[in-house]
């Protein structure tokens, strides 16, 4: 039985895979890796299926020991990893022997680092997924962040160790960006031209209160309405809500909601499935993984793109992730 022992949990470490899509009618949001691209690449490096479960670490990584030899890879941000004190590079596969300690420290760049192991992390699946949903305490390892002393099972794996690395030029195309692309949102027309200009021309800072549910932004407020009274009028909703709210509707991943006060919130993997705030824009799918690497005080700006552009960028990214050029055998 191959196991991982949590010697130190790190700041917020959870079991994640690519999430449980398809359960909107139950009010269940997909959860899953905040930076799904890094998770997928990590899995490719160790020879797993793309959606195998891994450990997602946040800002400060943990320390782990293994009961048997494992093939592992670290992807996402560089968390200054060492194996028995010797430095471990991210974006390549390596072997860990029983008795060795894999230790990660604070991030050198973005918010999250993924530890992928060959065979994947095995937990009792919930609705076809190993992902943890922290708010409801569902899924993953007991529905919570890992603690010191936790023991996780590693799935069986066949085949010998192949040392693999990620091609630097290809990896560069997936790197974090300061400017996030966005398409229009379902309530974009409720925001005046001036408000939209403010939104697209301002630099916003990620607030401390940001998490897997959403990224709160600090910066210039984006007031709603002022586009004639039609959009400012209450919409037959007797909830006694403040101006700016509307009838609750389904919300998509990456939606940029403008709450009371005019500050944007980018809804993220553990988002509520429905919401009653106006949405000015939606981050493009190809940039979702970049949201997962944003950390408090990180700065971003938004760029409006056409629907076709968003689609093209996603298709190109998927091609890249599946490409032979991405992974090099060493």
């Amino acid at each position, binding site marked *: 039985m191959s196991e991982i022992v949590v010697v130190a949990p790190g700041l917020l470490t959870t079991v994640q895979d690519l999430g449980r*899509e*398809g*359960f*909107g*009618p*139950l*009010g*269940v949001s*997909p959860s899953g890796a905040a930076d799904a691209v890094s998770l997928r690449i990590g899995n490719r490096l160790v020879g797993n299926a793309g959606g195998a479960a891994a450990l997602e670490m946040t800002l400060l990584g943990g320390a782990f020991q293994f009961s048997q030899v494992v093939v592992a890879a670290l992807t996402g941000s560089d968390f200054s990893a060492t194996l028995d004190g010797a430095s471990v590079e991210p974006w390549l596969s390596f072997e860990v022997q029983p008795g060795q300690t894999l230790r990660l420290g604070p991030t050198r760049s973005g918010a999250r680092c993924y530890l992928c192991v060959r065979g994947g992390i095995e937990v009792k699946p*919930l*609705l076809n997924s190993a992902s943890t*949903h922290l*708010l*409801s*305490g*569902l899924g993953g390892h007991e529905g919570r962040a890992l603690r010191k002393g936790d023991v996780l099972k590693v799935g069986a794996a066949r085949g010998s160790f192949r040392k693999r690395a990620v091609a630097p030029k290809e990896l560069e195309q997936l790197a974090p960006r300061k400017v996030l692309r966005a*398409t*229009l*949102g*379902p309530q974009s027309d409720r925001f005046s031209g001036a408000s939209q200009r403010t939104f697209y021309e301002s630099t916003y800072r990620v607030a401390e209160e940001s998490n897997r549910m959403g990224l709160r932004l600090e910066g210039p407020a984006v007031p709603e309405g002022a586009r004639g009274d039609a959009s400012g009028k209450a*919409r*037959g*909703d*007797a*909830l*006694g*809500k403040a101006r700016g709210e509307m*009838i*609750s*509707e*389904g*919300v*998509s*991943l*990456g*939606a940029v909601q403008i709450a009371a006060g005019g500050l944007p919130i980018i809804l993220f993997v553990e988002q*509520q*499935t*429905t*919401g009653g705030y106006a*949405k000015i824009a*939606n981050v*493009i*799918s190809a940039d979702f993984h970049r949201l997962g690497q944003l950390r408090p005080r990180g700065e971003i700006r938004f760029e409006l793109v056409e*629907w076709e552009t*968003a*689609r093209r960028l*996603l*298709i190109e990214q*998927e091609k890249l992730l599946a490409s032979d050029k991405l992974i090099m055998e060493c």
Partner: protein
Amino acid sequence: MGRVSNGTARFERASDQSLLVYFGDKITVEANEQVRRLLRLLDLQSITGVRNLHPAYCSLLVKFDALELRHEALEKKLREYLTRIDEVKLPKPRDVEIPVCYGGEFGPDLQEVAVLRGMTPAQVIELHASRSYLVYFLGFVPGFAYLGELPEALVTPRLPTPRKKVPVGSVGIAGNQTGVYPFETPGGWRLLGRTPVAMFRTDRKGLSLLSIGDRVRFVPVTRERFAELARA
């Protein structure tokens, strides 16, 4: 008769991999039934590439895989579904009773709601338990059902500042809606009581106690009965 037909359903792109179907812009039982019908039709005849559905009061968010579908093609397909939507037979609504122990430490806002609405706490309880509520949809967290509508005399705005932690099973009201918190989460609804029944269980078939279209009635129970049910 108040039914929103295919001709007036409105489509809106929500993101590069989702679109919204609106059945009018008012919360009505008829609009919600159209949502349920479309949801049912999509369940019976799924469209390749559709990945998730988020129903709400009078709209349905459809999430899709952009590698398999485009907005235009999906909208065309959904409009075709809408021409057949009136034929969809909705299952007979399930009637669900939820036992609630009102007031005391279970209902910290009961007194204030009574004062705000100019009645006694006993009257608030009686009114809240007097009717059968429709489950408009599940959202916010797994198993949270938006129930409506409250009797007019009970309509109360949500708390000015939400609580950081609402106990599991808390029964609250906000505006003309009522609902039960399935998990300990932040929450801004005014709490009248608590139920010992688990709203969401991973070992229950269907997981959530309530589903869209169900009818819910709250049944006042004593502390003793609450404790009995909680132990069961």
